[in-house]
């Protein structure tokens, strides 16, 4: 009995916890960069480690050792706090996802609402980062990020609620267990919701069809123009955690989560299944980002309201009629 706090601490700090998530974040950034590069007929990361697998870690430490330049005009408090918040929020939220067993480390009834709340909070952090930078490129980027959030937030919430209504619970672990007992993934039951959710996650991650807040050809680097050194390292780390969070959410809500595909649930089977499914989702994200071109901000917002919101409501109505549950 005395071992229990120790095991909890190990779980939080090492295995399905912080250390494992750090490795996962760097690994998925490598997969994303390499796959997108190969699709576009480039090489991608090549020299650090076998086929460049250590490149994201090398980039991270290189940025940490760079000089941290703070422009005179910035709001110092916001400028310092926002990179820390931007990387800490997705890391903390990742603990709600079940990885090692059927329940996550931080599982409670209603953690789906917490995830939605954190997604909104991340966008507000982005706006504050742009606002505190006092540069016109940063402010345009921050305003664009917020405008984009006004477009995708509603369909994303509705697409996350679809599985919750079917499973009768607002907890991610309960949704995963429901898919296990029913032996059917949510993709087959609610394909419309899956498509909407993937599109909204692309917008949340600011990947290419929706990379309007950091469009390099228009506004330098968008809301992160003024950041350098350790602050930029933390921003990039936060982006990687967001990628892990988004792929883990798609896998958990719509692809059966960490439940093994074969019928022997053992300690090794859960993380391996989780890794396989999330890697597939990351590959889907990078394929979409390599294939598409950027939308304009008005096209994006009006397209979201004209097509995605009615389709998401249609999906909810279908679920209420008994189709897909």
């Amino acid at each position, binding site marked *: 009995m005395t071992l229990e706090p120790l095991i909890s601490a190990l779980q939080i700090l090492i295995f399905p916890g912080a250390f494992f998530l750090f490795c996962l974040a760097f690994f998925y950034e490598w997969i994303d960069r390499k796959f997108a590069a190969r699709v576009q007929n480039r090489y991608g990361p090549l020299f650090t480690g076998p086929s460049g697998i250590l490149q994201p870690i090398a980039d991270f430490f290189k940025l*940490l050792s760079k000089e941290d330049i703070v422009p005179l005009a910035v709001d110092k408090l916001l400028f310092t706090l926002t990179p820390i*918040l931007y990387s800490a929020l997705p890391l903390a939220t990742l603990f709600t996802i079940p990885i090692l067993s059927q329940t996550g*480390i931080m599982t409670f009834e209603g953690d789906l609402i917490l995830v939605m709340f954190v997604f909104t909070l991340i966008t507000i952090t982005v706006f504050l980062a742009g606002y505190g930078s006092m*540069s016109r490129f940063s402010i345009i980027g921050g305003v664009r990020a917020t405008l984009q959030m006004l477009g995708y937030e509603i369909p994303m919430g509705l697409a996350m609620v679809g599985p919750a209504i079917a499973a*009768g619970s607002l907890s991610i672990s309960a949704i995963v267990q429901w898919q296990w007992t029913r032996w059917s993934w949510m993709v087959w039951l609610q394909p419309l919701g899956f498509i909407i959710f993937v599109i909204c996650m692309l917008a949340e991650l600011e990947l290419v069809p929706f990379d309007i807040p950091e469009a390099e050809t228009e506004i330098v680097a968008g809301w992160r123009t003024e950041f350098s050194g350790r602050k930029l390292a*933390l921003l990039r780390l936060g982006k990687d955690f967001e990628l892990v969070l988004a792929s883990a959410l798609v896998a958990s809500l719509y692809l059966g989560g960490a439940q093994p595909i074969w019928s022997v649930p053992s300690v090794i089977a859960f993380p391996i299944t989780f890794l396989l499914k999330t890697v597939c989702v990351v590959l889907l994200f990078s394929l979409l980002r390599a294939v598409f071109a950027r939308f304009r901000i008005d096209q994006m917002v009006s397209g979201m309201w004209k097509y995605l919101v009615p389709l998401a409501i249609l999906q909810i109505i279908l679920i*209420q009629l008994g189709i897909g549950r």
Partner: protein
Amino acid sequence: MQDGLPYILPIIFTLSIVIMLLIYWFGGKTAAKGSLKTTHGKKATYACGEDFPVEEVRVDLERFFVFAVYFLIFDVLAFILATSFYTTGLIPIAYSLIVLAAVAALLLARGARK
């Protein structure tokens, strides 16, 4: 992990903020310090080489406000739909149709104003 529930949420949020603060501190220790002599250009915000006064940078909050109000209304509607899984059937369907009509009205109103 269900029994330790009241403590686990603040513990994990504090832990991740502490980890990021450690990385930030470590970055401050190891980073290059740069030369003591700083020019005006180094500490200026990026502006493609032009001189641009800081005061002219401002967010257009008035145009933003309309969007924010729309968003607030629809977010509340979405959350009411989110908690509708105890009463399945006709009432949530009617509610969803009302939301759909509201979206259509919003789009038509925007089209008419143009």
